[in-house]
């Protein structure tokens, strides 16, 4: 049995972990409706909503931590009469469901962290090798001597743009400029880092929800880069035509080299990208006042009911001696 601060921290870890997982499950259940509802918003607003969905479980975890640690805060701020702080008397029993829960949570979290670090290290080496054998042009873009028609931005902290020579040969100067600017938009926005961080956040969701959320953000990021290029060229249809041409080249290459199917890495819907480029109605903006009011209301309700929720958690974790 562990008592004192150690016991409290283990209880805290369990309460936070369960809250994060519970909130992720809840979010996964309502996610299809939420994503359908998002269709009336513009690309930026949709991205903000997606980040809110991804962050929601962690907000719930933070709230659980606040409930376990400092119910006195609500007394201080809202004058709700439940100011007490007896959490430090927590007794943690290893041979209990709480012990099993903590072990399971720690193992899964540790495993996820280790695999992520290992993958990042491997991806870093792969990128370095690819860069070492590529030529850098005056714009800082890496040209890869390859027949695979592709262009991509790779790297977390210092993303690099790579364009294959196959694209150089097949595209006109204007089309190449569109591809380059599209990748430059990804580089400037540090999209690989954003995608990676988002992927890390949604790792607590169930796999189907995770895939849907990731694919949605991926599509939105591509649409944003497309829109940025279209605004520079003043003609979205040229960008759309280039998109179709590059995808046609890739499709033809895929037929010649069947193992290229592994390269269907970025299954963002090309149709959605083209409709976004050609469409005139780009949707509603992010409702900042409504969002702030809702968040404030949620926090206020949460703080008001903090005492009863705190005792519920304590009962659940057998906090009281």
């Amino acid at each position: 049995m562990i008592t004192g601060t150690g016991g409290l921290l283990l209880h805290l870890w369990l309460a936070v972990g369960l809250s994060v997982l519970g909130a992720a499950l809840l979010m996964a259940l309502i996610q299809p409706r939420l994503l359908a509802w998002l269709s009336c918003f513009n690309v930026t607003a949709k991205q903000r909503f997606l980040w809110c969905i991804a962050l929601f479980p962690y907000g719930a975890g933070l709230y659980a931590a606040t409930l376990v640690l400092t119910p006195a805060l609500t007394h201080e701020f809202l004058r709700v009469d439940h100011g007490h702080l007896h959490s430090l008397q927590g007794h943690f029993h290893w041979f209990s469901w709480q012990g099993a829960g903590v072990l399971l949570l720690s193992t899964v979290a540790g495993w996820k962290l280790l695999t992520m670090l290992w993958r990042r290290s491997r991806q870093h080496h792969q990128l370095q090798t690819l860069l070492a054998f590529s030529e850098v042009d005056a714009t800082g873009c890496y040209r890869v001597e390859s027949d695979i028609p592709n262009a991509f931005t790779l790297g977390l902290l210092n993303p690099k743009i790579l364009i294959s020579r196959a694209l150089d040969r097949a595209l006109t100067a204007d089309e190449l400029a569109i591809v380059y600017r599209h990748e430059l938009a990804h580089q400037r926005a540090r999209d690989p880092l954003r995608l990676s961080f988002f992927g890390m956040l949604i790792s607590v969701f169930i796999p189907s929800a995770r895939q849907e959320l990731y694919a949605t953000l991926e599509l939105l990021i591509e649409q944003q880069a497309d829109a940025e290029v279209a605004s520079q060229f003043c003609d979205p249809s040229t960008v759309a035509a280039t998109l179709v041409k590059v995808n046609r080249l890739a499709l033809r290459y895929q037929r010649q080299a069947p193992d290229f199917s592994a390269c269907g890495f970025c299954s963002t819907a090309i149709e959605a990208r083209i409709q976004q480029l050609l469409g005139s109605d780009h949707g509603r903006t992010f409702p900042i006042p409504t969002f702030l009011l809702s968040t404030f209301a949620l926090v206020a309700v949460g703080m008001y009911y903090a005492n009863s929720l705190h005792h519920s958690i304590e009962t659940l974790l057998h906090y009281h001696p």
Partner: protein
Amino acid sequence: MQLGELEKLVLNYLWEHGTADAKQVHDHFKKTRGGSLNTIQSTLDRLHKKAILAREKQGHAYQYRAAIEKKAFLGELIRTVTQDFSSDHNHVLAAFVSLSADLDEAHLDRLEALIKVSRQQKKDEAP
């Protein structure tokens, strides 16, 4: 595939020069990079064990050459990178190509027609 800095340099050298033995490689790098003949020999040996270099014994020395063409090697690397970056939906990659399983020429033709219609509409709307 993980390659060290010297391994990348040696491989590039052999792609440019065709075949060479350890001494020739060392002579090339001692001016620009320094390092001992032993280091070059073990680097060549490592690359041979990774099946990136092929070697043939001529007299007392091995003649090394790249076992895979540069274009094929880079193509394979691109495939590995894109595959690895996508296998767990945790990409660190943003790509221009959007190949999906259901994409075919007919689909692309339809999209091209859509673009033509949009261009025509804009032309008609213009004063």
